[in-house]
């Protein structure tokens, strides 16, 4: 059990900064997810915590110890790789036991520990097999078992589910979450998939271009995005952004599910209560429970999430309406969130913002 602290951590490859002065506290026992588009520096950050990349500048502290100079094996961490990185020439048992043997654990104790872990992840019948004889899901479990058996203070996971099919991925998501509850260790998890981040993390770190955009719980991230990037990265489909009326230095944004579509015939919306725009449905995506309607309006193209029963067809004329309290206000240049609307007036919800 340990918390992980990053202080002004920077990484540059040949003069090109990939991670630019990160300050981050990962609380003890938390399930922290680093999420962001590819190339945002999230994997590099994880690899620096693991010790697989050197830190160009700044400090990494695990527990009470600055680990910058410690080799990966001495940091009391375990990592699950995207491609599992199992030892192909060793069987499942040896794969799991390898780290223990290197630490000088006795053969007998090793056997007890490995069998115990294999039982937990459901690999007891496969201990004699080589990784090449296992399915993707089973390999994933070996990788997990290999990490778990060392009982590390911190688990690092680099997109561990990205090589699994959708069904197995959902299942493993649930299993990882409950594993985290059982073990109580600190989990640091890297993904580019915002669904994974939202469902698994209790603290989410959104990164972009080597910077942290926001650190928050999943719900806060969704409801109180601090900037345009987070607003558009979190949520599927992303937040709609439209031109602000009256103030040219602002833009407005609203979530697709907060908009209501009205047939064009019903018009004359009181603009005191709602933002509205006339437009035409240009395409429809049916998701089952919901339908996504892409509407070309006079104020820009927006996506509206509607009930599947909504009868709007492609080509029909509609009016998109959004109650003012669901309208977010952002600064145009910096993308910083200003606040929400109250009636026709923007109200600052946070003094200055803290990003």
């Amino acid at each position, binding site marked *: 059990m340990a918390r992980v602290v990053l202080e002004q951590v920077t990484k540059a490859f040949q003069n090109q900064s990939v991670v630019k002065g990160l300050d981050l506290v990962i609380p003890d026992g938390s399930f922290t997810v680093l999420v962001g588009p590819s190339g945002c520096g999230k994997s590099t950050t994880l690899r620096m915590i693991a010790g697989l990349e050197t830190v160009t500048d700044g400090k990494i502290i695990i527990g009470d110890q600055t680990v910058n100079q410690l080799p990966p*094996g001495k940091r009391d961490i375990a990592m699950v790789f995207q491609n599992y*990185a*199992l*030892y192909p020439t060793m069987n499942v048992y040896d794969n799991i036991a390898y780290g223990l043997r290197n630490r000088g654990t006795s053969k007998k104790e090793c056997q007890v520990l490995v069998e115990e872990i294999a039982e937990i992840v459901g690999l007891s019948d496969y201990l004699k097999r080589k990784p090449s004889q296992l399915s993707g899901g089973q390999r994933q479990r070996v990788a997990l078992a*290999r990490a778990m058996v060392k009982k590390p203070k911190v688990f690092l996971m680099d997109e561990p589910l990205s090589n699994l099919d959708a069904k197995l991925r959902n299942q493993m998501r649930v299993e990882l979450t409950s594993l985290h509850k059982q073990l109580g260790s600190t989990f640091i998890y890297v993904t580019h998939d915002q669904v994974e981040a939202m469902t698994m993390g209790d603290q989410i770190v959104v990164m972009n271009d080597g910077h942290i955009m926001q650190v928050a719980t999943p719900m806060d991230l969704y409801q109180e995005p601090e900037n345009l990037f987070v607003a558009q990265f979190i949520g599927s489909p992303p937040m709609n952004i439209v031109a602000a009326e009256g103030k040219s230095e602002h833009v407005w944004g609203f979530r697709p599910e907060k908009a209501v579509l009205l047939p064009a015939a019903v018009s004359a919306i009181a603009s005191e209560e709602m933002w509205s725009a006339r437009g035409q449905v240009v395409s429809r995506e049916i998701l089952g429970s919901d339908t996504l309607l892409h509407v070309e309006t006079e104020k820009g193209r927006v996506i509206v999430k509607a009930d599947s029963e909504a009868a709007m067809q492609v080509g029909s004329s509609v009016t998109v309406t959004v109650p003012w309290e669901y309208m977010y206000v952002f600064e145009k240049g910096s993308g910083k969130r200003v606040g929400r609307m109250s009636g026709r007036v923007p109200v600052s919800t946070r003094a200055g913002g803290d990003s």
Partner: protein
Amino acid sequence: MRKAATVQELPGVSQSKTEVRSQAFAWSDLASRLRPYLYLAPALICFVLFFFYPIGSIIYLSFQDWSLINLEQMEWVGLQNYQDLMKDGDFHQVLGNTAVFTIATVGIGLTLSFLLALWLNKKAKVYGIIQATVFSPHIISLVSVSMLWMWLMDPQFGLLNAGLEAVGLPAYTWLTDPKSSLLSLIIVSIWKGVGYNTLIFIAGLQSIPGDIYEAAALDQSPWWRTLRRITIPMLSPTIFFLLIINTISSFQAFDTIAIMTQGGPINSTNMLVYYIYEQGMDFYNGGIASAASVILLILVGILTAVHFLVMSKRVHYR
């Protein structure tokens, strides 16, 4: 025949229609069975012509007493040639030389190449330059290599002895003494082969995924254990391949011997292939040469089979 069948198959022409049809069917069946062999024929013909025929004829010739100068006078002597070989002290020495040469060249050569590959398997430019330098002997013809080393190893004017004397060591006899001549050939052979072997080893090393080493680092694996438990097993197909081709080529060493020592001094560097050449071309003992060729064939066959049996259990293919 087939055309006739088609005519008869016209409606209402023949009573024996079914019979003819079944015959036609058999024809097309045969054609489809033969087709694969037809496609294989060019390769098979070459194989028979240039592989089975020579092997067969060399076995046949090994039971004859014959020589290249008088091919008409061929006499069946049964196993006499083999018996002569078994009794011949020179031939025993030749077998011994071949074994020592092969074991030393393959053993030292591959170990050296492996260590070089471990050292050179890095990204910086300088390693690429060293790699190219080490590889260069491979593209020089063995004749040139032999001439070069004869000059280097010259007892009076050679660079090697000059070097030894410069650091205060006594001059070495190199190719001129039976005690040192085989060692000299082994050195030349290793020098010639090390670049190619290193290149293949480096290719093998580079095909090992990097994240396995990262996982090993996280598992606190000390470098020698990483080498023993991860690198070498992952490299086993490469090691296996190099072991086989190096063993076979060492067994068939000829050019260096022919140019540098002609098997001497006092038979000390004579090896199987050169012995065969000597018997057949210099001494006109066609029968003996053929019998020795058959023995070479059997030995190489056994060695390869043993390699396959032993290694196939330990080689890891992904």
